[in-house]
């Protein structure tokens, strides 16, 4: 077990799993509460267009992908508010258009771009120091935003109408959340790739939502399960011939299935305890 820490690429991979696992599960908390799950898939597929554009033009694909990801997230929120078009319709359009742009640009490539395949399917084992710096920077920015506006974000997720009536700058804070989500998706593409990234910003929060009835517990459990999925998947891919991205998502999916089974059992146990205490 200890030998996996001896390799430089594994040390970087573990650090990436720690950063991305924490970041995704924090954002996942809001994604589940605000019902933004489909947006995660939309952002990642649009980011593919940005990544491909970066590769063709010589711009850093992480930068161009981030611009597309954040732009998609924020414009989805903006258009749905001013245009009275539902968010899922806009996401559906972005999802297909971004993917189409990516495919069109990729098919025009001449030569071999190994980084493109890493971004499509994820390759945590090829994470560089430059990638880690980008992840750490994103984590600092998003963590500071969430800490500063946590109570307002929670209120907007619970009852946006009431938050607006109270005079809170709902649009600005919500746009900030969407931008944070876009950045998180882009950071996580390094880990599991465009195709699977939506799972990382949905499943940890969904597990925690199933298991906890208070937001503090939900946030804590979301982070715990996000990290468990990231490290668990990484370990599985080290010992078995399974790509890390797929292993991480499968571990999270298994935990979710267990949570689905566990909830009724927990309810039954709590009801029994309450009955005993009331006697």
């Amino acid at each position, binding site marked *: 077990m200890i030998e996996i820490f001896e390799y430089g690429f594994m040390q970087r991979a573990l650090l990436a799993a720690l950063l991305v696992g924490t970041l995704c599960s924090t954002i996942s908390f809001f994604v589940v*509460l605000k019902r933004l799950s489909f947006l995660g898939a939309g952002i990642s597929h649009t980011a593919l267009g940005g990544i491909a554009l970066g590769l063709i033009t010589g711009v850093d694909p992480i930068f161009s992908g981030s611009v597309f990801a954040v732009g998609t997230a924020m414009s989805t929120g903006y258009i749905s508010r001013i245009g009275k078009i539902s968010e899922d319709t806009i996401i559906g359009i972005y999802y297909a258009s971004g993917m189409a742009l990516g495919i069109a640009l990729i098919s025009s490539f001449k030569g071999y771009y190994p980084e493109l395949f890493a971004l499509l399917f994820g390759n945590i084992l090829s994470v560089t120091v430059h990638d880690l710096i980008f992840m750490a920077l994103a984590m600092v920015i998003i963590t500071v935003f969430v800490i500063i506006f946590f109570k*307002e974000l929670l209120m907007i997720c619970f009852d946006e109408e009431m938050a607006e009536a109270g005079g*809170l700058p709902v649009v600005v804070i919500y746009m900030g959340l969407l931008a944070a989500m876009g950045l998180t998706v882009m950071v996580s593409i390094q880990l599991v790739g465009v195709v699977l990234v939506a799972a990382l910003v949905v499943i940890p929060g969904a597990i925690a939502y199933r298991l*906890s*009835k*208070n937001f503090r517990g939900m946030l804590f459990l979301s982070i715990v399960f996000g990290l468990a999925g990231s490290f668990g998947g990484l370990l599985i891919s080290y010992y078995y011939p399974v790509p890390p991205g797929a292993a991480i998502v499968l571990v999270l999916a298994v935990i979710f299935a267990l949570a689905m089974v566990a909830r009724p059992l927990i309810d039954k146990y709590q009801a029994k305890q309450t009955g005993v205490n009331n006697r």
Partner: protein
Amino acid sequence: MKETIKVDQVQVVLGGKAVLEDITFSVSSGELTGIIGPNGAGKTTLLRTMLGLVPIRKGQLEVFGVPVSRLKLVRPRIGYMPQRKSFERRFPLSASDVVAGGLLTPETLLRPVSAKNEKIKKALQFVAMERYHNQPFQDLSGGEQQRILLARSLVRQPELLLLDEPNAGLDFPAQQSFTELIQSLKRERNLTVLLVSHDLMSIASAADKLVCINRTMHIHGHPADVLQSPSLDEAYRCQFDLISTFDKGGSRS
């Protein structure tokens, strides 16, 4: 009596369509006024207009003597309870957490809320729900959830309370108990209450005044006068025979 709300020939246009036209009425301090009208009459839009959430195209709307465009000056004096459909019922919050949401204002951005626990405790006492403060909101019954949401709208101790369909989705005993609670809060705290409801009889028996709208103003006055008026039939596009029921004490028809 002082006028808390003054609505004068207000027109609201949404998506190029006039959803409210020529609405005129006033609400005096300490009054419980019911806004009635059929589905799609613009009752909720009217309430949202008073909160500055929907812009006015024409006319004037003043709350505490301040034009609605400068509402932030008087916002702390207004409590609001939106319709229940506006939130996710399984949201992982305790009753206290829900009430704490009512304390968030532009002034509490980037800083903690002062004396939060005392304010929450007091608001829960107003609605006789203090023993539920730690209970998950999702575990409470519909009637209990409504009381918690009412506590949230009372937590800043407002003088004016705007309630949007507070009885919707509740069974009859819960509706009655909630209406009695509103009436007692109004008496004890001298609150001015504006209550939107589609349940004509329950609101008629509780309110001091009724305002009947259906996109445009139909009638405003004492419940007995409103219920007898042909304008009510016009607004609902059907014939009512409610006044005899109302005279018997306002029980449900």
